[in-house]
């Protein structure tokens, strides 16, 4: 954020003071005028709808009786009650959290590995860097369809190769199977397969975002720092642990927050991949289903509101207790 400059208000003769004041006023007016188109759009399309959602969440509104909806409607807690006690709500909230944490961690870890690997010079670096960004810039609809086809049990490449080369007994329905039994060293346990696939997709699609941020930060690390450590005989992993990682700390913290917010609110990826089936129903998809299948605007709003509140709570917890302290804050 911008640090505001110290107010320059030295006591001056009245005549000049008035002129300064009018200049300040003019600046004030110009600032507001320049920002006003933005403010109007954001207020109309974001702030007012949010407030309206709060109102809708406390009224029994369906699409049919929408005309009746107003500021002075009948306020009730029925929606909240309906949502909180409806089957599948809590599991959907849990799914959202697992999905968000998994995808956030995955994208940052892969992004970090990518940034470390692509940082130095090598032949074709420009091309590799550009192509690594493709999953992030490509349209979500196109990308989800390719994944669906690649993973399809009937004619998907993954299953075809899996059965041919990896010795799978039968094709795996990556996107429509809730649980998959894995046996490892005599242990049997269930893996939430569809959810895991969606998380992997999300990590694939958004690791370039983390990669961009981390690469930019890595390139700003002074070369002498690493050089000195290398001369002293430090191993690459030691250099990473003691020199690079502390420098990256603040960026990783920022990325965690950004990716967490965006994934938590994400709708299209899950909706397009699984439609919310097979144990992947995150809250935003659930809200959409409430809206389009039942036309229950009140309950959908209440649910969206709970989603937003849940996000705020999780962010506060993260920033308060878990976030790495930003370097220099203590100083």
């Amino acid at each position, binding site marked *: 954020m911008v640090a505001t400059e110290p107010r320059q208000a030295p006591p001056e003769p009245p005549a000049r003071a008035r002129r300064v004041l009018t200049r300040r006023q003019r600046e004030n007016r*110009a600032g507001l005028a320049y920002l006003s188109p933005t403010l109007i759009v954001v207020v109309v399309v974001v702030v007012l709808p949010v407030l309206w959602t709060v109102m809708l969440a406390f009224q029994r509104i369906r699409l049919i009786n929408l005309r009746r909806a107003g500021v002075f409607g009948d306020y009730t807690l029925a929606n909240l009650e309906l949502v909180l006690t409806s089957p599948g709500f809590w599991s959907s909230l849990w799914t959202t959290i697992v999905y968000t944490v998994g995808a956030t961690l995955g994208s940052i870890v892969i992004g970090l590995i990518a940034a470390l690997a692509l940082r130095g010079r090598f032949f074709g670096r420009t091309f590799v860097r550009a192509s690594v960004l493709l999953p992030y810039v490509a349209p979500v609809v196109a990308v989800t369809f390719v994944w669906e086809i690649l993973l399809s049990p009937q004619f998907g490449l993954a299953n075809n190769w899996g059965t041919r080369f990896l010795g799978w007994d039968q094709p795996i329905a990556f996107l429509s199977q809730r649980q998959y039994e894995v046996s490892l060293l005599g242990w049997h346990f269930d893996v939430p397969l569809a959810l895991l696939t969606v998380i992997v997709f999300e990590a694939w699609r958004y690791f370039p975002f983390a990669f961009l941020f981390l690469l930019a930060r890595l390139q700003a690390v002074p070369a002498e720092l690493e050089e000195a450590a290398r001369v002293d005989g430090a191993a690459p992993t030691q250099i990473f642990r003691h020199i690079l990682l502390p420098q990256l700390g603040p960026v990783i913290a920022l990325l965690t927050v950004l990716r967490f917010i965006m994934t938590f609110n994400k709708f299209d990826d899950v909706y397009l991949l699984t439609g919310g089936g097979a144990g992947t129903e995150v809250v935003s998809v659930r809200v959409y289903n409430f809206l389009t299948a039942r036309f229950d605007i009140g309950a959908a709003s209440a649910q969206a509101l709970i989603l937003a509140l849940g996000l705020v709570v999780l962010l506060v917890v993260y920033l308060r207790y878990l976030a790495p302290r930003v370097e220099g804050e203590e100083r």
Partner: protein
Amino acid sequence: MTDRAAVETRVLRVLRWVVIIGLVLVTLFPFYYMALLSLRPIEEVLQNPGRIWAGPAEWTVSTYREVLSSVDDGGQGFMRLLLNSAIVSVAATMVTLLASIPGAYAVSRLRFTGRRQVHFLFLAVYLFPSILLAIPLFVLFTRLGLRGSLLGLTIVYVAQTVPVSIYMLRNYLTTIPESLEEAAAVDGYTRLQTLRKVVLPLAAPAVMANALYVFMIAWNEFLFALLFLVEDRADWTVSLGLAQLSGGIEVSKTVLMAGSVVLTVPIVIIFFAAERLLTEGLTAGADKG
């Protein structure tokens, strides 16, 4: 060099190339496969799903003909949808820039009441899920008669992108020395003239990068297009058209892939063009010292 350092350096040198090749494969392969499938005949794909290569002799363009030809000719009418997407994306880009350039200038240069609070307003855009905004906007736009129009969609895209746009531009504007603007003021330029004739040319690379960013967001967007436009086929964007196409049973997967290629190619072209443009903009700045 200690033993550990020597061993690690050697291992990592190999591992680095493994990672690079792995990354390129993982990121590029789905796009390659998309293009390949769109060119292969469907019967052949169903018979040999495991093939990842097909020579030009086996290619067919019938999938593209089906996707692009108009509905009257028995196709999917994607030409029309491409036009819709282009209209919405270009309009959203222009309106966003018209709002965010003066906005960013105000936030970075001018002192006004509420300047510090503005950021909280913008944070709201990202903190609240778009599905939460979608419900009241759905209701509001239905009442205003804006739902089902490209104009309504454009307004939503502007609101979604303007805060980031201001943030990005502000970061760039703060690197432009204020003395230039003071000189312009001495020359008798008004504030608006200064913005247009001094600041804007200097910020051109950032403005271009921004424009491309907004265009990409608008072109790729799906949720609001789905909610607002789904009723009338004539208004669909490409993303929506493609998603609706997948619901159709009689549509083959290769046609779906052709549609995906049609949707993806403009963005990829723009992205690779922008990469060059961005580096050029940066090196031009570096030349001047």
